[in-house]
């Protein structure tokens, strides 16, 4: 059975005067997937999201939601998606209830009172419904923003750094809520973030943008596997000079972090034999720590260059 695509982006380009902010970006989001859009500052993530929402007009390229061209079928497309961002807040002067009532109208929600009440109960903000939005904490605002993003039962939510500016505890709870939303409703999400742990945790696929271009699109695991190196940290009792001599003879890249602790940059496959061989030079290994590459390493490799990880 063919996979249903909720969003297809074809060769999207945005040129601001002299700068090519987005340069031929193409990707698609299948039903039920969470796709992460990552990249260093200025990579083109937010510009891409804004084009997908119709806030910025693309220079060229096509955006297709649910098989319908955007923005030609703007209202019909936007009716089935929603947006949450830590950078956009709701109207601060008015209450949470009033804000949500306005958006319920804008999205044509049937039985808006019941919808708002049930979502407020789900997110644990029923007691805040009549508080002014400005008076809420950052974590409470994030939950209210997520309610706004779910009012129209969207099939796809675009999230632009929804946990930015949240403390780690609230960010973790927010992520748990997003995971729960996905589990319950099966909604697809396009998720931008700088936090690699978040992305590793919730995204099925990751698109890396750099200088407006996609140069890696894979699962989080697949991306980390593109960095072949891992770091082996050994602590030992015995002759340090013998270990140093042995590693140098093998041509390993290493450095001593403590007098009897050495950090060796090697490949994942070489780690078992390396541990065994070090033990044969007459030292007693007291601690082993293996640090595998993370998505953050991929990100840093991209952000600092070289420009390709594959």
């Amino acid at each position: 059975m063919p996979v249903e695509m909720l969003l297809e982006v074809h060769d999207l380009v945005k040129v601001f005067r002299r700068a090519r902010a987005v340069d031929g970006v193409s990707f698609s989001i299948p039903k039920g997937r969470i796709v992460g859009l990552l990249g260093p500052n200025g990579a083109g993530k937010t510009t891409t999201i804004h084009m997908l929402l119709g806030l910025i007009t693309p220079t060229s390229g096509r955006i297709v939601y649910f098989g319908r061209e955007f923005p030609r079928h703007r209202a019909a497309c936007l009716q089935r998606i929603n947006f949450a961002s830590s950078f956009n807040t709701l109207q601060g002067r008015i209450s949470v209830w009033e804000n949500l009532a306005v958006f319920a109208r804008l999205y044509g929600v049937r039985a808006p009172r019941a919808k708002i009440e049930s979502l407020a109960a789900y997110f644990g903000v029923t007691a805040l419904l009549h508080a002014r939005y400005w008076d809420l904490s950052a974590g409470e605002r994030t939950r209210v923003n997520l309610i706004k993003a779910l009012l129209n039962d969207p099939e796809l939510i675009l999230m632009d750094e929804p946990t930015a500016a949240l403390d780690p505890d609230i960010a973790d709870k927010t992520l748990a809520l997003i995971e729960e939303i996905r589990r319950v409703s099966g909604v697809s999400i396009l998720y931008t973030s700088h936090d690699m742990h978040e992305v590793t945790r919730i995204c099925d696929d990751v698109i890396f943008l750099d200088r407006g271009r996609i140069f890696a699109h894979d699962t989080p695991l697949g991306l980390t596997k593109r960095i072949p190196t891992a770091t082996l940290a050994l602590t030992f009792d015995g002759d340090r000079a013998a270990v140093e001599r042995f590693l140098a003879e093998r041509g390993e890249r290493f450095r001593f972090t403590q007098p009897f602790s050495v950090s060796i940059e090697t490949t994942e496959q070489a780690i078992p034999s390396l541990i065994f061989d070090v033990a044969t030079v007459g030292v007693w290994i007291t601690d082993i720590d293996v640090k595998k590459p993370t998505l953050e390493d991929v990100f840093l490799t991209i952000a600092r260059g070289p420009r390709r990880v594959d």
Partner: protein
Amino acid sequence: MSTERITGVLLQEVFITRRSLEVIVDLFYTSAVTVVVFGFVSRYLVGVTHQSAGSYLLLGLLFWEVIRVNQYSLTVGSLWNIWSHNLSNMFVAPLSVTEYIVAHLLSALIKTFVIFCGICAVAAWGFHFDVLRLGALNVAMFFANLTVFAWSVGLVLLGVIFQMGTRIQALAWGMIFLFQPLTAAFFPVSALPPAVRAVAYALPPTYVFEAARRALDVPGVNWAFVGIASAENLVYAALAIGVFSWMVARSRSSGRLARAEG
């Protein structure tokens, strides 16, 4: 065009107006205090000059408020969303720019009508100046013409704000006063220097204020002035819609619409 979405924006306007002391002060309070001050000044002028000077002043103020309140409501109504970083949220909903503007025009019209009725009541009750002396038809036509002119100015200002962001937000409540002397709101056009009169006659409210003053002295509808004002208003409205549409398209292209809040 969806009436439900227009109602949604109107609902937001009701909520903001109800909860914002600034809106209440800028619109209702300022209008009420100004009409009282102008009422006393006109009462004083009646004693020292002649009856018409005082009446012209109060009449000018009542109709000037139609322009000020309409334009302020239209432009500042959107600034509330920009200040709250909520404008993007509005436009990523199925709401179109046209629906958004129609809602703000309606909101401005309702606020202006309520305030106009209120200050006319204060003028009648406190200073024995009954605006209906001009005739209900005159008042309705003057109100309509001044409203359309205010909307045109407001629409252009809104387009400029969408294009340039909040750094020029002061124009939203300050720009309109440029038209107060140019449209001869409180005095006959003949009081203006000849060079400025040409500018004045290019502005629809000038004909409205002139027609209103004449109607005070000689009852009846000045169809010529009303006709010219309406024709000029049509041109201004068409230009304003064109400029606004162009500004919105440019701000979408330059990315400024998305960054207007920042």
